[in-house]
């Protein structure tokens, strides 16, 4: 337990029959930058809401620095930026940042926060008259004012243009460099790949994969192997080692493989001599799609199986 910044122990959140989060267990260690990656409706926001004491789990236990979420938040241990978080209108940016600074036990000086969030030049503007990107930066400022050891961001770059997004991650890296733990939810795969050193893929409320970006790609069958082969023998190809997905178009074979070397050697060992061999890496996007698609297929399969079972009974 010691050293764990955040733990989820078999956490579920049900709304009636809807299982928004189902048996989620995970552990964040100090200094990690972790991306919570999943499609819309996967349970990312619900999980973060529970971590931040905005919602109560139906079952299971969440701990932040060994405390329950409510007391961790009220002790100022976490700075957060949510999609649904708003700002106080009718005050200036500086007034707002000063207010929230005052709410934290050991805050960053106001000037430092303004500079780090890149809002020192708009500090005297009224909060309700900012552009979308500026608003997003002010919300980011509110997440870092507390100088907290854990920062939680829910889809932080949603309303940002490319340039603002770049600036955002630059200042985020500054935060992480000082030893903070960062947890962010995103459905931008590129962002997860570039910013995170650990990715958790969740789909339909469950944790599907947990590892470095490289591991995630590998787990999904992260190499694409293609070649031309006369007289294709599909049953043989389907039995190849490492094969995740097979797609045959005429004489051209496309294979998604978790171990492209082994797959190719097996083809050669069987006496085939394919031509035009190409091996390429899958991006994280395909890896992510492969993992969630596999999960969705399994789910449809089990649902069908259970309805069959009902019919038979």
């Amino acid at each position, binding site marked *: 337990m010691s050293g764990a910044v955040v733990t989820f122990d078999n956490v579920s959140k049900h709304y009636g029959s809807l299982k928004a989060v189902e048996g989620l267990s995970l552990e964040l260690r100090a200094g990690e930058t972790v991306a919570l990656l999943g499609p819309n409706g996967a349970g990312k926001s619900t999980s973060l809401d529970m971590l*931040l*004491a*905005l*919602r*109560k789990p139906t079952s299971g236990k969440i701990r932040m620095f060994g405390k329950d979420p409510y007391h961790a*938040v*009220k*002790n*100022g241990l*976490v*700075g*957060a930026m*949510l999609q*649904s*978080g*708003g*700002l*106080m*209108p*009718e*005050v200036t940016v500086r*007034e707002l940042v000063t*207010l*929230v600074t*005052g*709410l*934290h*036990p050991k805050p960053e000086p106001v000037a430092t926060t303004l500079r780090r969030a890149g809002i020192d030049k708009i500090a005297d503007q009224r909060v309700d008259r900012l552009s979308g990107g500026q608003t997003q930066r002010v*919300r980011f400022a*509110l997440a870092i004012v*507390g100088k907290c050891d854990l920062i939680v961001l829910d889809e932080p770059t949603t309303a940002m243009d490319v340039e603002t997004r770049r600036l955002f991650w630059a200042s985020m890296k500054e935060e992480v460099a000082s030893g903070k733990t960062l947890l962010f939810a995103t459905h931008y795969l590129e962002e997860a790949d570039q910013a995170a050193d650990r990715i958790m893929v969740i789909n339909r409320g469950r944790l599907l994969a947990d590892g470095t970006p490289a591991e995630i790609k590998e787990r999904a069958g992260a190499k694409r192997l293609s070649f031309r082969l006369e007289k294709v023998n599909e049953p043989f190809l389907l039995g190849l080692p490492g094969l995740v997905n097979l797609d045959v178009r005429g004489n051209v074979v496309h294979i998604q493989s978790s171990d492209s070397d082994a797959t190719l050697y097996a083809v050669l060992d069987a006496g085939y001599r394919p031509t035009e061999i190409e091996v390429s890496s899958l991006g994280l996007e395909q890896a992510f799609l492969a993992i969630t698609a596999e999960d969705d297929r399994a789910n449809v399969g089990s649902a069908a199986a259970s309805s069959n079972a009902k019919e038979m009974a």
Partner: protein
Amino acid sequence: MNDGTLLLARAEISRLRRNRRYLLMTLALPIILYLVIGAQVTTVVDGLPFAAYYMIGMAAFGSFSGALMNNSVRIAQERKEGWIRQLRLTPLPARGYVVAKLLASMAISIPSVVIVLLLGHFVGHVHMAASAWILVAIVVWLGALTFAALAVAIGYRFQPDQVQPLATLIYFIFIVLGGVFFPLGSTLEKIGKFTPTYEAVTISISLAKSQPVDGLMIVGLVIWLAVFVSLAALSVRATAEAV
């Protein structure tokens, strides 16, 4: 009291001081109405010179409207826009937001009550015992707490676009039936007797006339406060998961 709550209350006050609409409703309107109507009419109503009656009415009007109209709309908006949610992510205690709103609302209604009473004294030539001035000010001021509680109950329960007409309707009924602008006829008064506005105004009138205060009026006002506070607590709790 938690420091964060006081800090937020202070920020709320400085926001309100800049809000023209708010100042117009709670400060300018009662003052203008008093100068234009209250200080000019010279009849006697309910055994009081109209200038005194209207002074009590306008002090109550300013302080109650600020407490109900402003707070209910603000709370609904800030809930919708996520400011309440954002505050929940800070070390501010769970009740801090509501407490700060009530504190700020009570603090900022002081000038409106004080100014209307001063106008009553200097412009309307109202005469009362020194203790009566203070007690009237306190009753009219504390009566606003009832409406602030109602504002929390409404603001946490309804959407911003529903809150405005709903609060206006409730407020209009209370103001008219409570005899805040003019004394009621006998039929309406039978119904109006049970409104918190009527109770606050009647208690103040008794004080102004140096007569004993009807204990039932005080009990009535306290019951309204208890009911609205309970409704507010229910509304806040109902949204605790979804704010």
